[in-house]
């Protein structure tokens, strides 16, 4: 897992959800652990898209539940 991607994902998540960096673990779920509702998730995904210059289609969003999921997704997307 890319440390650089994880750090940037953590930074964006802390900023968007107003959570503490230590709460943002690889296993942390956006809705279960980090207090995000469905509108928060929409905005968070937009922030990831901006940060990494990628597009995350709606059908992929449903598979992204944790910090680890999003890091792996971005890694895969960037590798393509």
């Amino acid at each position, binding site marked *: 897992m890319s440390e650089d991607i994880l750090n940037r994902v953590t930074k964006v998540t802390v900023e968007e959800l*107003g*959570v503490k960096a230590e709460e943002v673990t690889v296993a942390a779920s956006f809705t279960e652990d980090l*207090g995000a509702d469905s*509108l928060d998730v*929409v*905005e968070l995904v937009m922030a990831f898209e901006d940060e990494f210059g990628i597009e995350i289609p709606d059908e992929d969003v449903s598979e992204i539940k944790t910090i680890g999921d999003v890091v792996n997704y971005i890694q895969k997307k960037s590798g393509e």
Partner: protein
Amino acid sequence: MPDHPAPSGRVVVTGIGVVTPIGTGVETFWANCLAGKNGVRKITLDDVSPFTTQIAAEVPDFEPTDWLDKKEARRIDRVITFAVASARMAMADSGIVLTEELRDNFGVYIGSGIGGLNVMSEQTKVLYQRGPDRVSPFWVPYMIANMPGGIVAIQFGLHGPNMATVTACSTGANTIGEAAHAIKRGDATMMLAGGTEASICDIGIAAFCAARAMSTRNDSPEHASRPFDRDRDGFVMGEGSGVVVLEDYDHAIARGAKIYAEIVGYGMTADAHHITAIAADAKQPARAITRAVASAGITVEDIGYVNAHGTSTPIGDPTETKALKLALGDHAYSVAVSSTKSMIGHTLGAAGAIETIVCILALRDGIMPPTRNLDNPDDACDLDYIPHVARKKELKYALNNSFGFGGHNVSLVLKKHV
């Protein structure tokens, strides 16, 4: 069968919260109000350099994280944060302890003249510059004018009636009048009521510039808002919020609450004349005053102080003066009148609430705030407007006037609690 005690038919004010350009918190605001302090300055909240008006009464040093958690504070519209701040202060001031049963009978009527204009402006730019898929999912919830009251209810878990009156610059007076009715009817035992506004942003300033409604005295902001003065040249936009806790009289007495004043009269009429200009004959604002006084069961001579709508516009001030003469007769010349907008500008949807709070505090302390900048009264403005310096006077009843675009005329009568 209602799940709360039968209403007493009387409604009292037991808590106050304000966010204004001359102070956040009731006692700071009140001290500065009595001192005739100026809240108008060069606009800092947005770049308005190309606009004809570059001054406004901004709320200084307002920190959203003082009132909301970090996530909400970062993105929520200023108009909502102002409402939450005033509601929190009013609730704390009331000393109420919320129980499950009380929450079910505790409502919120908080309105805004415009709504979340900052979010509207920012997201419209996003739409045109970056496209529809970059628009925030929070555009709608943070823009709609009922959301300040919605979010206040969420903060405290209040399940009583929740509604937002939108009557432009009469909004804050309407919400208080309607909330008092809700308690009198028995729809609720307690209500948070008031108004909030935060429209000092590019589109807000541009829009009121286009309407030719605002002062352009950019070189001398502290003298720009001058109600009833012959050199006035339009209103100065203000921002802020005012929220009161209203409570059934018996409930307040039973819990030993601190009572500020009683809401005793409420009158409304519509001009049905023009979208923005008040009708020159002043008949309808006069009727609103007459109705408010009649519903209080008093005579006009009982009114000791009038907090005027007094916006500092060329047409508005003499027309309100005329309305006071029509409604109060000869008593118009003996009653004392002042305009808080000379200090805090026109806070639009919050004005009626903040200025009702001024009436409540004037009754409590027996002192009436001045009209700042009233150096040379207009010939058509020949009443006693308390120029420059606050004045002591034992008061029993006070009247608040609010008039809004759309022709909404609203008057409230407040009674000193003894």
